[in-house]
C-alpha cells in the first residue's frame, strides 16, 4: 500500500514535469469520429425557469447545458482523437453546447481558459489538466460561482472537494486485465506458470500509463510465479522499442523467453520488427500490447499480437452521459473508469471496425 502511494506520487510528479509530451495512453493516433449517439435526450425545453429535461445543471432551463472543456493541447494522436470525441458528442442535438479551450501545452493558458469559462457563463466545466499545480484558486472560483467541475483523463490529486467526480482510464486496471488474460491463456493451453518468461518493454518511465501497467504486470508475476527475464523502457516510441528489443535479443537465446509485454502498440511494432530482423516469428511467442490502434488490432486478427488491453481515447460520450446522470441528481462515484476490455482472437472481428487511429 505504501509503495503504491509512493509510486502514485512519483507518477504524478513526473506527469507534472513531462506533462507537455505525455498522453494518457502513450499512443499516438487519432480516431475516426464515432457515430452520433442515438439515445440522446430530447433537446426541447420545458419552458420552466430553473429546470429542464437536462436536469439541475441546466441552470437557465433552455434545455442546453453549456460545457466548458479545458483540453491540454493537441500534442499527440491520442489527444486529437480524445478532443474529437468531445466535439462529436457535445452538440445541441445531444443537449450540449461545447466551449472548447485548447491550452496548447501551457499551464497558465489552461487556467485562464477555465476562468473565461466561468465568466462566460459555462454551466459545467470539464478539465483535463496539464499539471496538478495551482488549481485550487481557479477551482474555488468555479465553486463560488456554483459551476460543477468534472476532472477527466489525468487526475487532480488532493483536490477532490472541488470537483464532482473523476473520469478516465484505469491504467492499473489495464495491467490487471492483461494479466488476467494471460492467466486464462495459460489455463486454456495447458501451459505451466514456470514457462512464462517475459520480456517487458516499459513506457515512458513515470507516466501514469507506464506506472499502472507495470504495477499490474509485477503483481501478476508475483502472484503466479512468472519470470521477468528482461525489463527495459522503449519510451512509448517505435524506434526505441525496436532498439531495446534488438539489444535484449542479442543477449538471450530464442528459447529463453515466451512472452513479450509491450506497454503500447508502437513499442510492440518495434519489438516485432526487431524479432523478424533476427529470424524470430512473433507468432511463436505470446505478444501482449496496450491501447488498441487499428494496425495493432489487425495484427491480433493476423495472429501476430495475441492480446491488447484497450485504452480508449474516446471519452467524450461517456463523460457526456455521466454529466446527464449527475445533472438529474444521481451521485457519480469518483473515480469512475472508462469501459475498456481486452482484445484477442475471440472478439477481434467486432473490435476491428471500431478501432481508433491507423
Amino acid at each position, binding site marked *: 500500500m505504501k509503495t503504491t502511494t509512493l509510486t502514485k506520487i512519483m507518477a504524478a510528479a513526473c506527469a507534472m514535469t513531462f506533462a507537455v*509530451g505525455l498522453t494518457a495512453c502513450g499512443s*499516438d*493516433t*487519432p480516431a*475516426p469520429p464515432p457515430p452520433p449517439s442515438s439515445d440522446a435526450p430530447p433537446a426541447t425545453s420545458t419552458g420552466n425557469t430553473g429546470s429542464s429535461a437536462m436536469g439541475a445543471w441546466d441552470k437557465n432551463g433552455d434545455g442546453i447545458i453549456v460545457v466548458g472543456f479545458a483540453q491540454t493541447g*493537441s*500534442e*499527440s*494522436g491520442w*489527444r*486529437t482523437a480524445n478532443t474529437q470525441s468531445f466535439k462529436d458528442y457535445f452538440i445541441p442535438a445531444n443537449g450540449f453546447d461545447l466551449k472548447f479551450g485548447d491550452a496548447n501545452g501551457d499551464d497558465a493558458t489552461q487556467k485562464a481558459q477555465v476562468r473565461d469559462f466561468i465568466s462566460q457563463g459555462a454551466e459545467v466545466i470539464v478539465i483535463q489538466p496539464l499539471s496538478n499545480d495551482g488549481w485550487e484558486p481557479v477551482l474555488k472560483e468555479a465553486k463560488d460561482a456554483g459551476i460543477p467541475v468534472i476532472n477527466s483523463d489525468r487526475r487532480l490529486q488532493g483536490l477532490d472537494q472541488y470537483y464532482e467526480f473523476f473520469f478516465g482510464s484505469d491504467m492499473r486496471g489495464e495491467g490487471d486485465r492483461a494479466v488476467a488474460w494471460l492467466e486464462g491463456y495459460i489455463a486454456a493451453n495447458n501451459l505451466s506458470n514456470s514457462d512464462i518468461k517475459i520480456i517487458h518493454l516499459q513506457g515512458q*518511465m513515470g507516466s501514469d500509463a507506464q506506472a499502472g501497467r507495470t504495477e499490474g504486470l509485477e503483481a501478476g508475476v508475483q502472484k503466479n510465479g512468472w519470470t521477468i527475464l*528482461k525489463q*527495459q*523502457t*522503449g*519510451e*512509448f*516510441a*517505435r*524506434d*526505441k522499442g*525496436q*532498439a*531495446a528489443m*534488438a*539489444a535484449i*535479443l*542479442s*543477449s538471450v537465446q530464442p528459447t529463453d523467453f515466451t512472452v513479450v509485454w509491450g506497454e503500447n502498440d*508502437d513499442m510492440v*511494432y*518495434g519489438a516485432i*520488427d526487431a524479432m*523478424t*530482423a*533476427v*529470424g524470430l516469428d512473433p507468432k511463436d511467442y505470446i505478444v501482449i500490447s496496450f491501447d488498441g490502434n*487499428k*494496425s495493432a488490432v489487425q495484427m491480433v486478427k493476423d495472429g501476430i499480437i495475441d492480446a491488447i488491453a484497450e485504452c480508449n481515447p474516446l471519452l467524450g460520450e461517456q463523460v457526456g452521459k455521466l454529466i446527464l446522470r449527475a445533472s438529474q441528481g444521481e451521485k457519480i462515484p469518483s473515480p469512475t473508469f472508462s469501459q475498456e476490455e481486452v482484445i484477442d482472437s475471440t472478439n477481434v472481428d467486432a473490435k476491428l471496425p471500431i478501432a481508433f*487511429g*491507423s
Partner: protein
Amino acid sequence: MPSALSRVVKSRLFFALVCLGLVLALDVVVFAITNQQNFFKIELSPANTLTGPLMQILYWAPELVILAMGMTLVASCSAGADISVGSVMVLSGAVGIKILGGNNIENFKVEEYAVPLVLAFGAFIAVGALCGVWNGFLVAKLKVQPMVATLILFIGARAAAKVVTGGTILRVEPKSFRWLGNYITDSEGNNIFPVPTQVFVAIVVVAATALVLRFTALGTNIQSVGINAKASKIMGIRSDRTIWLAFVFCGVCAGIAGIIMTSKISSIDSQWGARMIELDAILAVALGGNSLAGGKFSLAGSVVGAITIQALKTGLLTAGVRAEQMPFYQAIVVVIIVIIQSPELRPMASRTLARMRKFSGKKVVKS
C-alpha cells in the same frame, strides 16, 4: 620513424580512434560481465541478416554519421552549430510522406504510393535543403549567431511537422519504403542482402562529401573562412556564400537522415522522432577531434566520433543498462573522452612520449 610516430600521436584522428577503441573495450568488458558473451560475435540469422552487437551499432549509427558530416562543415566555417537538424529531419519526413501518400492517405496510412518513391525521397532532401537555405540566410547574410538562428527551426520545424501530419503518426504500408532504412527484400518479403542498406547510404554520403571537398576548393575555403573570415574575404573567398552553402549541405544531410529514420520505422512520429539527435551530432563532431570554434576539420574524425557515440549507446543497451539512466553513463564516458582529447593534454602526451624515448635511448647508449 619517430617523427612519423609522433605525428600520428599528435593527430586528431588518432585520438578519436583511441577513444573509439576505449569505448569498444568498455563494451566488450561490460557485455562479457552481464551476458557472458562475446561482443564481437556476428552470426547469420535465419532471416538472412547479420546479427550481433556490432551489427546493431552499424544498424543505428548511419543517421548520426550523415548528420555529423553536415555539422562538421557548419562548425568549421561558422564556428557554431546547427541545432535544428533533428527537427528538420522530422519535418522532411512529414512532408515527404505526405507527398508520397498524396490522396491515397486514408486513416493516417499510405496504402499505395501517389508519386514514385524516388520523387518522395527527393522531397525529403528538398525540404532539408530549404531549411538549410533559411538557416544559412540568417547566419551568413543577417549575421545571426548560428545557435540563435537555428533555434528558430529547432522549435518551428517540429511544430510544422505536427501541422503537416495533423499531430498523428503517419504510416507507410508498401514494403519498398523500408529498404533504405532496413534490409532490401524480395517480393515475398525475404531479405536479399544481410547488411542494412543505411550503412551503404552513409558510406555514399561520406565518400561524396570527402571527394567534393578534396577535388574542389570548397574544403580549403570552409576552413579558411572558419579560421579568419575577414582575411578570407580579402583573399577573394566569398565567406558569406561559403557559410550559406555549409548550412544548405547540413540541411541536405538532415533530409537524408530523415529518409533513413522514417524508412526504419515505416512511419513519421513528429512527437518523439529524432529527439535530441542534434546534440549527438554536435558531440560526434567534437569527439572526432574537431574544434567547435571553427577552422580545421576532419571528416574521418567526425565519422569515428559518431560511431563512438553509437557504440557507447548500443553497448550500454545490450549490457542491460536502463535507457532512462543511459545519459548519466554517457556523460561519464564523454567527460573522460573530452579530457583525453583536451588540447592541454595532447601536447603533454606527446612530450611524455618523447621523454620516454629519450630516456630509453640514453639507457641503450649507457649499456
